[in-house]
């Protein structure tokens, strides 16, 4: 994985001292809250429902054991012994003190981590495929490209006061495991007909209150123009994105209002101009970055496991993923125990995951946008020992991509923007389905819950989505069906009137039952929904 050189370290250290100075000026009254807010947000510090919340960047979801240990230590030292892994592949701490935040950032910097641009109207942490470098189906490892753009976007002098936040995802596979087309810019590394690598740019996707799927605005950008093309996309947005209404300020609205064709024309014009400006790092820089993501020394070894323990066999079937080296798999550590809080991990669990990474996965971990953790490179021979350790620590839930593997935003339990609680709904649904035994029969069923229209819980992209709303001061939940964030990307449709907290759990089971009744052989929930449409579901839900 990427390691800082003296330049990267100097920048992160400078940022810590800048923030220390800004926090001091705020505490001394030299900055008003209005002035301080964008500065603290660009360091990931929010004022949330109960306290300050700090979001730490995990670039493209990759971290090593020492970094995971440091995250655990921070949870103990500055917070209340736990952290929350998010749909942006980051981690959040819920109980941070402003007077200690700079010290926390300083501890992070010691392990080459930071909270830079994890909030604010700037280019946010860049996300990627959580199986990058391990997946059997990828063209190349997308992370060097993500790292190139991370450095370009860090402290960008022109794009730090954009109309609104800006999220970029980079993938390099036909499979989309990063919701690429639901980003402000989605980049897919591709090959052209001549076999040369380049990047397809999708611009103007997003969830939130006006969900949009990004159109492809250019099918092939040569690799030595990635930064320049990105700069062109951003400059058009910075100049012409709406600033009169924060709900219409995301780039998706600009692309929608101009039309993809006109937006593209303006980007191409800007691109032609910027190509004369010499802003592109040389390809040698990309080559330098690639060396950090070289394969670890994979060994040959057994390709199968002893399946005599049915619990272990189930976990292997559900939570391990085919690897590009056939004696290895990527193993998913579920942070979704039955009745648990999706994405939360205690400091002890983080320490354990760090140790397991060191022992079994070449010291590497990944954070999934589905709020689970991946050990990307596990020898198949090591799976029994790994599973035993996980199971003992309550981290062995065999539920990847099932209805129990729920994405949920923090919701009204933690978030000041939320209209309803998300976590209790997730807890009740996972308890319901583990009790009724339908989880296995339902197979792949992605359920995603947001506590408000901002859609941090990706409800638009769930096979089943749930949106919490405020109905005259009472929590109410709308049901959506048919969304997907994968390569078959689609936006879910609302079924009809909302439900109470217990009502939505029943409604999810009703929808699941319609699928079990109507499905044909081999169909997933989403496939059946697409074949039969929403009406049979509405009929069952509302009669």
């Amino acid at each position, binding site marked *: 994985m990427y390691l800082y050189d003296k330049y990267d370290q100097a920048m992160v250290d400078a940022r810590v001292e*800048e923030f220390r100075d800004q926090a001091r000026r705020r505490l001394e009254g030299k900055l008003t809250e209005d002035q301080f807010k964008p500065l603290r947000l660009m360091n990931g510090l929010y004022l949330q429902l109960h306290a300050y919340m700090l979001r730490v960047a995990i670039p493209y979801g990759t971290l090593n054991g020492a970094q995971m240990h440091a995250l655990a230590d921070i949870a103990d030292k500055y917070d209340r012994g736990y952290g929350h892994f998010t749909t942006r592949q980051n981690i959040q701490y819920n109980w941070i003190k402003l007077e200690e935040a700079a010290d926390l950032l300083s501890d992070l910097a010691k392990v080459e981590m930071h909270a830079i641009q994890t909030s604010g109207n700037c280019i946010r942490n860049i996300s990627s495929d959580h199986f990058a470098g391990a997946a059997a189906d990828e063209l190349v490892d997308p992370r060097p490209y993500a790292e190139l753009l991370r450095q370009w976007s860090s402290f960008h002098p022109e794009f730090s006061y954009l109309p609104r936040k800006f999220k970029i995802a980079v993938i390099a596979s036909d499979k989309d495991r990063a919701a690429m087309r639901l980003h402000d810019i989605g980049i897919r590394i591709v090959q052209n007909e001549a076999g040369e690598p380049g990047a397809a740019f999708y611009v103007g996707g997003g969830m939130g209150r006006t969900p949009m799927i990004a159109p492809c605005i250019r099918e092939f950008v040569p690799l030595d123009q990635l930064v320049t093309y990105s700069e062109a996309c951003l400059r058009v947005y910075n100049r012409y994105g709406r600033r009169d209404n924060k709900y219409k300020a995301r780039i998706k609205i600009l692309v929608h209002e101009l039309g993809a064709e006109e937006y593209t024309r303006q980007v191409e014009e800007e691109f032609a101009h910027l190509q004369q400006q010499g802003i592109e790092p040389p390809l040698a820089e990309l080559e*330098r970055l690639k060396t950090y993501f070289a394969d670890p020394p994979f060994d040959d070894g057994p390709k199968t496991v002893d399946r005599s323990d049915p619990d272990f066999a189930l976990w292997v079937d559900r939570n391990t993923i085919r690897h590009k080296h056939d004696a290895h798999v990527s193993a998913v550590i579920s942070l979704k125990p039955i009745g648990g809080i999706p994405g939360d991990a205690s400091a002890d669990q983080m320490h354990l995951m760090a140790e397991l990474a060191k022992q079994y996965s070449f010291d590497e971990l990944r954070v999934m946008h589905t709020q689970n953790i991946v050990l990307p490179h596990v020898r198949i021979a090591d799976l029994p020992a790994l599973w035993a350790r996980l199971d003992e620590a309550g981290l062995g839930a065999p539920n990847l991509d099932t209805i129990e593997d729920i994405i949920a935003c923090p919701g009204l339990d933690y978030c000041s923007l939320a209209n309803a609680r998300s976590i209790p709904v997730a807890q009740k649904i996972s308890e319901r389905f583990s009790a009724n035994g339908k989880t296995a029969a339902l197979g792949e069923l992605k359920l995603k819950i947001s506590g408000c229209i901002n859609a941090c819980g990706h409800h638009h992209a769930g096979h089943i989505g749930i949106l919490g709303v405020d109905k005259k001061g009472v929590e109410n939940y709308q049901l959506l069906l048919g969304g997907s964030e994968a390569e078959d990307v689609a936006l879910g449709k609302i079924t009809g009137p909302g439900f109470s907290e217990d009502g939505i759990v029943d409604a999810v089971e009703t929808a699941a039952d319609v699928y079990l009744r109507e499905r044909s052989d081999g169909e997933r929930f989403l496939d059946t929904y697409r074949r039969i449409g929403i009406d049979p579901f509405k009929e069952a839900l509302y009669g």
Partner: protein
Amino acid sequence: MAEIIRFRDDEPVDHPAVTVDSFLDQSNANAVRVEPGDDARALIPHLAQLHLVEVNFPAFGDGRGYSSARVLREAGYDGELRAVGDVLVDQVAYMKRCGFDSFEPDTTLDPDTLGAALARWPEVYQSAADTRQPIWSKRHA
């Protein structure tokens, strides 16, 4: 109005800047003020005539002026480029990178804080409108 902080040695223009619209109408002024909604590109045919371009920041969160500055510098403008309005001390370093070389903030900037802010960044990641050498260039020098 607070004092003007300049990072250039020539004599400042001593008369008020005109709006972009009136500049384009009459075209004999040498100082113009660009508002966030103005297209800085409209000035490009007239850059040789301009000695001062003020870019107004009515609110510090509106970042269009950063792009206006770079558009002008990339087009070869080498006269004074002044950020005026709601310009905060923590923004000045980024503004300088975008090509601004003078500042007229609504609220006086504390000199020590300004000095610290300008000395803050030992390196830069991007090529911009200043002369700083980006990290990628140093790595492959």
